[in-house]
């Protein structure tokens, strides 16, 4: 689409000097529940299990996957809202993995979050002015011209009426509330914003507005985003690169166009084949890959490749010796084609899953960039 095509190629952004964020083998194991009379510890829940990626300034990484795959936990571990139990997070070359909350405070200016639920992410007892002004108050910053002016400027920038400074969150709609959350994240002029499903709770029409706002702000302030979502068309619209997660691991990570047009991992194939296509003839003709079975428990993941229990390829195409390999040897995520890393023993490019056009979100106005 025109709006994103005008941006520099993702690879170029990544290679301008040092990456803004470098995540290496990050793990988050939640302690298992104590069971039995003697209170033995159960298996830890491996919410995130060795996730690695890097992100350049001004770049957007989409993080997709079904519920419970660890994408939100990854976002929270990166922004240090929860402590990773393993791996390293480097921000602007500095290892921030083990910083205490106090040591993190100055870094919070650079690294912000936008939350999923616009209803619970704003304190119902605070006015909008207080909510958006909180970053200044917490960081002890006195913006030029006073906090109120700065807040009203931010409100205007995200498309809110600055006169609503003294209103309370319950007086706003979901989309407006999400704009408030965006203004709050923007207040300290961060370099990276982790967007945790920022549009999942919104109306489709409002989703487009908010996504467009995020894109405008990105080009205006040179923001980098980690965009967590489960809507593949939204992710396709906004991302430069996309990582597909399953059971706490990245299955495939590559640039946006490659992922959608030439995905290699069977799980990516299944996800893409599930995206509805607007044209009914195409929709009826194309192959739908159905995943069977339940998502395995992250406290007791399958041996070998974690996806083999539900892998359509494992089930239908592989020989018995190949299956044996899948069951016993865990694949390593590695570059199978230039810029395309895949966690699979038997990856295969498929370009027949989705037509070249992005999904429904393309109906929104092109950005006047």
């Amino acid at each position, binding site marked *: 689409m025109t709006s994103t095509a005008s941006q520099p190629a993702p690879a170029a952004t990544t290679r301008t000097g040092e990456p803004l964020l470098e995540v290496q083998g990050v793990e988050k194991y939640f302690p298992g529940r104590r069971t039995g009379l003697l209170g033995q510890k159960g298996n830890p829940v491996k919410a995130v299990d060795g996730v690695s990626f890097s992100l350049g300034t001004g770049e957007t990484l989409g993080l997709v996957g079904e519920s419970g795959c660890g994408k939100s936990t990854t976002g929270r571990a990166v922004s240090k809202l929860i402590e990773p139990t393993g791996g390293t997070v480097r921000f602007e070359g500095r290892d921030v993995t083990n910083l205490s909350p106090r040591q993190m405070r100055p870094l919070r200016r650079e690294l912000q979050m936008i939350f999923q639920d616009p*209803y619970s992410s704003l304190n119902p007892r*605070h006015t909008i002015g207080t909510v958006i002004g909180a970053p200044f108050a917490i960081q002890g910053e006195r913006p030029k011209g006073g906090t109120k002016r700065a807040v009203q400027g931010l409100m205007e920038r995200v498309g809110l009426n600055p006169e609503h400074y003294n209103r309370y969150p319950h007086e706003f*709609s979901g989309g407006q509330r999400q704009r408030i959350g965006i203004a709050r994240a923007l207040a300290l002029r961060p370099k990276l914003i982790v967007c945790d499903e920022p549009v999942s709770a919104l109306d489709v029409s409002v989703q487009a507005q908010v996504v467009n706002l995020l894109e405008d702000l990105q080009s205006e302030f040179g923001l980098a985003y980690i965009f967590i979502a489960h809507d593949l068309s939204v992710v396709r619209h906004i991302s430069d690169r996309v990582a597909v997660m399953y059971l706490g691991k990245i299955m495939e990570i590559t640039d946006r166009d490659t992922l959608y047009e030439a995905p290699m991992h069977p799980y990516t194939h299944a996800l893409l084949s599930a995206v509805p296509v607007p044209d009914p003839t195409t929709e009826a003709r194309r192959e739908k890959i159905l995943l069977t079975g339940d998502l395995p428990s992250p406290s007791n993941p399958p041996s070998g490749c974690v996806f083999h229990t539900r892998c359509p390829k494992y089930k239908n195409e592989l020989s018995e010796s190949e299956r044996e390999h899948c069951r016993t040897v865990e694949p390593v995520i590695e570059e199978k084609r230039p810029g395309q890393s895949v966690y699979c023993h038997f990856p295969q490019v498929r370009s027949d899953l989705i037509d070249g056009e992005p999904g429904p979100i393309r109906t929104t106005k092109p950005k006047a960039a």
Partner: protein
Amino acid sequence: MSLSGPTEFEAVAADDGLAGSGLQGDGNPAPDATAPGIAGRSLWAIAWRRLRRDKLALAGGVVIVLFILAAVFADPLAALYLNIVGRGSETFATAHNTPPRNVLDELTLLPVGAFSGASAKFWLGVTPQAGLDILTNLLYGARTSLVIAGLATALSLVLGVLAGVIAGFYRGWIDGVLSRIMDVLLSFPTLLFSLALVSVSSIITTSSFARYAVIVFVLGFFSFPYIGRIVRGQVLSLREKEFVEAARSLGAGNARIMFREIAPNLVGPILVYTTLAIPNNILGEAGLSFLGVGVVPPTPSWGQMLSDAGGFIQVDPFYIFLPGLAIFITVLAFNLFGDGLRDALDPKARR
């Protein structure tokens, strides 16, 4: 845009009030962005609008205000009354210490006439034996009730909110310790303990201030687990809200999160608890005074009046009726107001 005048604003406000019960969760609660009124309608304004429609709660509120006024302005009110009935030379102290002549029967020390000897000079009559003016006694008894119930409630609020917020916020062993302490206190035989405590304390000192302090402590300390549990439960759910995470992602420390982000959301339950705890403490004070371990005479107290009247119930039930009625009306008023407030503050309540 400018305000379109107070009447229109009122009309808009009233409209929203009608739809107010769908406040949270029914799709789009927000008014049109171009609606007049730049100042936000706080949750308080909405609660007040709901409360205004609750006549019973309002009546309770009026009685509460009268009760507080009576307690605070007991001196001028008593003086005014004494002036009206032509006993202007008397003060509260003399009205107490010198039984007025011609009011008590000299032999039995009972008031002359029915209804505790009520007359133009003594509107509600006088007490037997001591011959105290019952109206002034009730007036000053209100002060005793308010001071003790107020201080005891304040004590239980401070302890309860602190314990509840800390237990709910930190969870883990801190929560375990605080919660067990609260459980122990709840299973404590409070009444027996306070009887014992008063006896012990009166060995050390008999000052009326010490007695006040003991009563406030007993009532306040043993009731803080009630508010503590309510607050803890609220905090347990509030701390998981995304706005807490948002504050953390901005670099806020625990203290700020507890007292700036979470605490304001507790004001509703705390307020409701307060209006329901005050009548409890009024009853508690009356009960202790009735048992003879309350405030020391001559400080009047409704419970003490009840206790004194007990011996004369066959002679003239009016003695027991008056302080009983005072306690009943006050407690009922607080409870009605508290219930109304709870409904008004609960956005999901429907009636």
